[in-house]
């Protein structure tokens, strides 16, 4: 199950602050696309706009050819776009397994749903905590739980907001492995991340945002040396040799 996610000319302002300004990006089907940029560049706002958590002022969002602009988060999820959050949003007073059972069943029986949930907990390495309250998990384990319960509904596109943020290095490797494995099975990923090593090693394409505008887009090796990207991150004009 895979799909292409496209945002075209998306703009969003909060009062006088223009968070997104005609922003366009494409997460190609079956690819891992990275979305990077300095703090405040609009990455999470774009995620919120795509997944229905923020209403946009202008622009369109498409999942394959279906327009999903302005759809509710519930609708966007039902159409096959799952997401995680920068600060994990699990259900702390439910057990880990119960967290996994919250997403819609997608035609599965209760038993199949539970089996699928346990499979994904095992896949992410936290099956041993199935009976524990989710609120007792460490931050890294919460990230894995959030990834697992987004996957339980088999979304075609998965948006990950800083999956490596605040996570220890060994777990970052594990998260990257899981993403690669899922991608090999055809799933599309759009990933916001500050950890450049993580992004450059994982993504097929990288899009760079600065002040709500896309300043560069392309393969990681090209983006890495793009003068506008260097300018956005370092705040100075790149000097040609």
């Amino acid at each position, binding site marked *: 199950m895979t799909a292409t996610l496209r945002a075209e000319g998306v703009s969003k302002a909060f009062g006088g602050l223009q968070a997104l300004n005609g922003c366009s990006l494409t997460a190609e089907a079956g690819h891992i696309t990275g979305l990077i940029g300095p703090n405040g560049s609009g990455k999470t706002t774009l995620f919120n706009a795509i997944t229905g958590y923020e209403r946009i002022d202008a622009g369109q969002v498409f999942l394959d050819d279906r327009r999903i602009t302005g759809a509710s988060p*519930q609708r966007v999820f039902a159409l096959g776009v799952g997401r995680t959050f920068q600060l994990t*949003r699990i*259900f702390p007073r439910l057990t880990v397994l119960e967290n996994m059972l*919250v997403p819609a069943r997608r035609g599965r029986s209760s038993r199949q749903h539970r089996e699928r949930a346990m499979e994904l907990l095992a896949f992410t390495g936290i099956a041993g905590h199935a*009976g524990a309250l989710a609120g007792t998990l460490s931050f890294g384990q919460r990230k894995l739980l959030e990834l697992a319960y987004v996957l339980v*509904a088999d979304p075609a596109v998965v948006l990950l907001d800083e999956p490596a943020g605040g996570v220890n290095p060994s777990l970052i490797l594990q998260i990257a492995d899981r993403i690669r494995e899922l991608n090999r099975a055809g799933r599309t990923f759009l990933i916001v991340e500050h950890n450049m090593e993580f992004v450059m090693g994982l993504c097929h394409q990288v899009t760079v945002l600065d002040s709500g505008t896309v300043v560069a887009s392309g393969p990681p090796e090209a983006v890495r040396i793009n003068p506008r990207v260097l300018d956005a991150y370092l705040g100075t004009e790149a000097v040609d040799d």
Partner: protein
Amino acid sequence: MTDRRRWHLPSRGLAAAGVAVLIAVLAVFPLAFTNPTVTNFGVITLIFVAVASAWNIFSGFSGYLSLGHAVFYGTGAYFLVIAAKDWNLDGTTVFWLLPLAGAVAALIAVPLGLVALRVRRHTFVVITIAFFFIAQLSASNLSVTGGSSGALAPIPNFASATYNNPFYYVAMLLAAATVVLSVLVRRSRFGLQLRAIRDDEDRAAGLGVRAMPVKLTALVLSAFITGMAGALWVYFIGQAVPQFVFDPLFDLAVVLMAFFGGLGTIAGPVLGALVLEPTQLYLNLQETNGYTSEILFGALFLLVILFLPRGVLPTAAEYANRDAVRKLALRMSPRRGQAGATDGAGPSAAPAGSEPAGTAR
């Protein structure tokens, strides 16, 4: 013995035995204690067991604290009084009006819910209070309810020596059915969605939970039982007067019962009602100052919120489990890191496969 069984405090078998004993005690209670004052306490207490559990099905599971359940209680009460009078019903026949009274209260809950459930948390609480006062003022001013002087319920021709017993057993049936319903809701996908809404409604919606229908269904279920309880109560008391049928202290008492025992648990509201309602009735009987129980209950409410915010049962379960957790952690210490903890920082208390501390049912 598996971890799961070892970590259940109390174990399922023990809990089942406890429930069986409780039912047996409740069943023989009016036969063993024939004093009408005592059985009177029993009837009112069981009615509050049903109401507190019904309130918990909505507010405890969803996190939307309602201070307007007296609207449903009063609606059921007035329906019974008016319907029994119009249809010339008396005796045990009147008990058959209870489901209808519940249905009317549930019907009222639909528009109220559609309005109130559009807002969250504190605003929701304020709106439920507003609905409560609208209902109270309406009952005080409408001719159909008898205005401020109220209306009389039919007086059943039960034998005086056992007058309270039919009410007692109907109340017991209602309480038991409500607790069973609570268990079914909590174990269902519907209950899981309610509890997910309690933790993070936006996130739940983002995972496909249709929050509004789920919340509304819970409110309607809760209102149905509360309406039946109100109808039974008014038939027992014999008169529907606005300030007692729509009593603000009713809502506070129900909330206190649920908080005291354990909000969102099955047994918590039951325990709260079984402890607090007889205490209040006893204090009302003993004290010439009618406000003594209210003052004491207000103080108790403060103490519970400050020192037992999760309620007696979850706190007790946590303390009981703490020692067991420590012992098991010591036993497992050589094998640490092999149990699936992926980043060397496992869950802070509960081990693999265990029922976590503080999840008292």
